[in-house]
């Protein structure tokens, strides 16, 4: 996978003072990285359809587990159209373990009573069949960054991305925040060098 640093058609080549600020100034701005803005990237062999099939095989009950910032909400946003197409009653709860024990118990009972499916996300197992356990690795982060940089080039190198990913582990959200800062740093350093030369 190649990394573009300076693309002849990007804003980075221009004096930053000439650049009109917009959401395209930084590919890691929250408008591009928030859940729903980026499609979920499945690992090799996994697809959204397969996930729905697993859910169906477990009588429409399941959990998606993973640590902070690993993409659980993004995954829900990605599979939402398939859930609707299933034409089945399904309750989706994002952050199931944040409900009280009583609410969790009553939710499960209510779903059983109404013969409704239940799909939840959580940081740890809440007793439902595990459909997917998210653990983003460096390769996934590289792919996500590559996608983000299709719209706006960045001066970041693959080493920058790998180092940030290694620091934050599976918390992709924090990785993006750090890469945001790094992109800003590089862009402004470039402007400073140009000013000094001028």
């Amino acid at each position, binding site marked *: 996978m190649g990394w573009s640093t300076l693309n002849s058609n990007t804003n980075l080549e221009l004096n*930053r*003072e000439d*650049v*009109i*600020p*917009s*959401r395209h*100034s*930084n590919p890691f*701005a*929250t*408008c591009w990285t928030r859940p729903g803005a980026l499609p979920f990237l499945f690992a090799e062999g996994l697809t959204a359809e397969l996930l729905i099939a697993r859910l169906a095989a477990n009588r429409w009950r399941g959990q998606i587990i993973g640590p902070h910032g690993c993409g659980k909400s993004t995954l829900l946003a990605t599979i939402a159209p398939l859930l609707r197409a299933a034409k089945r009653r399904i309750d989706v709860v994002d952050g199931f373990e944040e409900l009280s024990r009583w609410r969790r118990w009553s939710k499960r009972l209510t779903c059983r009573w109404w013969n409704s499916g239940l799909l939840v996300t959580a940081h740890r197992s809440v007793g439902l069949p595990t459909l997917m356990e998210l653990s983003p690795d460096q390769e996934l982060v590289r792919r996500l960054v590559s996608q983000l940089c299709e719209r706006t080039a960045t001066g970041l190198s693959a080493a920058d991305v790998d180092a940030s990913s290694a620091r934050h582990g599976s918390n992709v959200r924090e990785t993006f*925040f750090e890469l*945001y*800062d790094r992109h*800003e*740093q590089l862009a*402004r*350093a470039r*402007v*400073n060098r140009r000013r000094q030369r001028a």
Partner: protein
Amino acid sequence: MSTPSVRLTLDEASGHYQPGQRLTGRFMVDGSKPWAVRASELSVMWYTAGQGEEDFSVHYFDRLVDEPGLPLDLRVPRRFATVLPQSPWSYDGRIVKVCWCVRLRLTLPQGNDSLTEVPFRLGSVPAVEESQGREESPESETQG
């Protein structure tokens, strides 16, 4: 479903404006036959980008609606004009950016929307430099 080819342009080629200056431009939709546009909404607005949630506010808003007997044919260029406010200025900060743009939203049949944006700069605040604001302890400064 294909989307219409929209041309949204500002009269000021540089895209740089000063507070209180008049912003003018035009928009139209290319095509040999008119698109079935239910409504068009043109906004002159600012929004924030960066590491925070997006805030935005609309300074100027104009809505054109397709009515029976008065069809909305956007192949004819439509002009718009507004006097820009004194604030907020465009700002290219580190974690907060204040961005101005002209946004055209076309409401198409079956609830689809087409969105086109042209950014512009209000004011003359330069981008924040990397070295600005770095914190150093006075004791370390004087011990050199």
